[in-house]
């Protein structure tokens, strides 16, 4: 009787609980109080990790999230716990195998710089041949808009820089589905928690 989305949500809740518990253990041992913003950050991050772990690294965005968080300090324990703890380290290894190398930031910078140069050049050429054809201009405009939007989408997706366009849409599909599930679960939790506050 259970639908896949519900299964996904259940798994998400389980993993989220585990993640929160592990972070709680760590935080309570180190410090006493957290501000609201810190708490929010932790909640958001754990939710993201749990969501990514629910997909078991089958998609690029989940792998990217897990790899990112794994690189950050203090998060290794959480991820290891969420990904199944000491029982199956293979899965985690499998996910982290896809981790982008540490030089990715540098690479991005290089790409950006080269793009800037290219843009300058293309601008110069377009200034010279401005009066050529309007039709060509229109298509190129549409193309540039599409490109810009694709890049925006890539920036929105975690780990989206490394995906090509065809896979990007697939990943976006998956990402939207899981985000929806996450929002749904969180919404329900908020409603429940608020209701409990009232009486």
């Amino acid at each position: 009787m259970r639908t896949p989305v519900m299964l996904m949500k259940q798994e998400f809740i389980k993993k989220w609980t585990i993640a929160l518990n592990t972070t709680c253990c760590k935080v309570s041992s180190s410090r006493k109080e957290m501000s609201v913003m810190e708490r929010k950050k932790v909640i958001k991050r754990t939710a993201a990790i749990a969501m990514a772990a629910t997909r078991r690294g089958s998609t690029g965005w989940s792998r990217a999230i897990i790899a990112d968080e794994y690189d950050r300090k203090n998060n290794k324990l959480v991820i290891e716990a969420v990904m199944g703890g000491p029982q199956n380290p293979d899965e985690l290894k499998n996910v982290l195998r896809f981790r982008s190398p540490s030089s990715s930031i540098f690479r991005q910078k290089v790409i950006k710089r080269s793009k800037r140069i290219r843009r300058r050049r293309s601008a110069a050429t377009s200034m010279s041949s401005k009066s050529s054809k309007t039709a060509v201009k229109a298509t190129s405009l549409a193309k540039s808009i599409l490109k810009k939007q694709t890049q925006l989408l890539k920036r929105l997706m975690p780990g989206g820089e490394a995906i090509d366009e065809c896979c990007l849409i697939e990943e976006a599909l998956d990402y939207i589905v899981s985000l929806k599930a996450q929002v749904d679960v969180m919404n329900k939790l908020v409603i429940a928690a608020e209701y409990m506050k009232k009486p």
Partner: protein
Amino acid sequence: MNRGLPEMMLHCLNTSVGVSGGAELTVLERQRAHMKWQQQQQGLEYGNVYSVLAVGDGGVENQFQGQLCGESGVGQVGHPMVKPETELDGAWTGFGNCGMPSAEDFMSCGYADDAAAEYSYQMAKTASCPAPPPILGETSEGKDSILSGRTSLGGAKKRKAEKATSLKAVTDKDTNEKKIQEWAEDGESKITQQNRSTISKNKKKGEASADTSKDNSKVSEVPRTDYIHVRARRGQATDSHSLAERVRREKISERMKYLQELVPGCNKITGKAGMLDEIINYVQSLQRQVEFLSMKLATVNPQLNFNIESLFGKEVFAPCTSSYPTLGALSEMANQAYTQFNQLEVVSPGLELRNYQPDMGLQRQLSETYVDTTSFNQNPSTWDAELQNLMAMEFQGRSTSYPSQPFIGYTEANDPKDGDLNQNIHID
């Protein structure tokens, strides 16, 4: 003109497949008498070649063998996928007519907002394991697309497409030899008509053949056709690059269709740019919602270790804790279920479906215990029979529907959708 192109493509095949394959092909054309034996050998060889190119399974080899058989005109080898090429031409148009509407039906009947979500999740989940029967055709399609998406080493795909077309061209030549009169009769219109929608038809064909072959190939798992037939229209370019590009564009637009169904308010927008815009907005809004909700959760809960257990472990059941001796153990049960689930994962890491069934069983147990515990409850003002049913069905809705009545509407609003989906997409 029609004959010129296939011959060129045949030449292309000869050069591209390599010495052994090409030589064998010409042998095939000359010696029709010794067909049977050679076919098998050739089929195997082709299977080998293509299984390197495509992400190969047994299905690929079978398919190719079938292709060759059909080409030679014998066509009665016992595989159900096999169709003689002479029939194929007619069958294509048939598929165009009968295959498409059924797919559209599928689209229209269950493809509400969440349906697409479920489907795509299903698609991703079953990517590595044999699909359950009811959603077989769709998932196999999904599998194909996913796999080909994953293995998007551009060169390999291009070569694949090229090979597919060249093979097609070979078969074309044969049909041309046989049925040249028919071609002459129907003339250009038939060709263009055929060519117009060959890509989509072939996809449907793959779907249908996967459907039919599932029954007998449960023993030999995962029948998958991992190559794509591409045919150029009349004026279109036939070099490998543009073919691959066309296939890619086709795939993107197909994904876009799914996205369109997934993203609300995206139905009326046509054009890639507008749709991308809408998708971007939607993703942004979802991310913002997550941010907002986490903020809200942080403010509502004074300490961090709020969790689901604390939410409905203590406070919710506070008024009637005395009648709930089992509820305390419930969270433990959930944990147990989870650990069991984990163990199962360790046992069979590859088959996710197998993981799911025990999980479902456990969840069902859980919900049954829930029903039992609710039947202990003697508080009719807050607990309806309806609510109990809901809870039995929705493990999820529990967290909201437990506290009070106001949330019943909410879960009910969700519920019929879920019921529909259960009819459409159903594990078990």
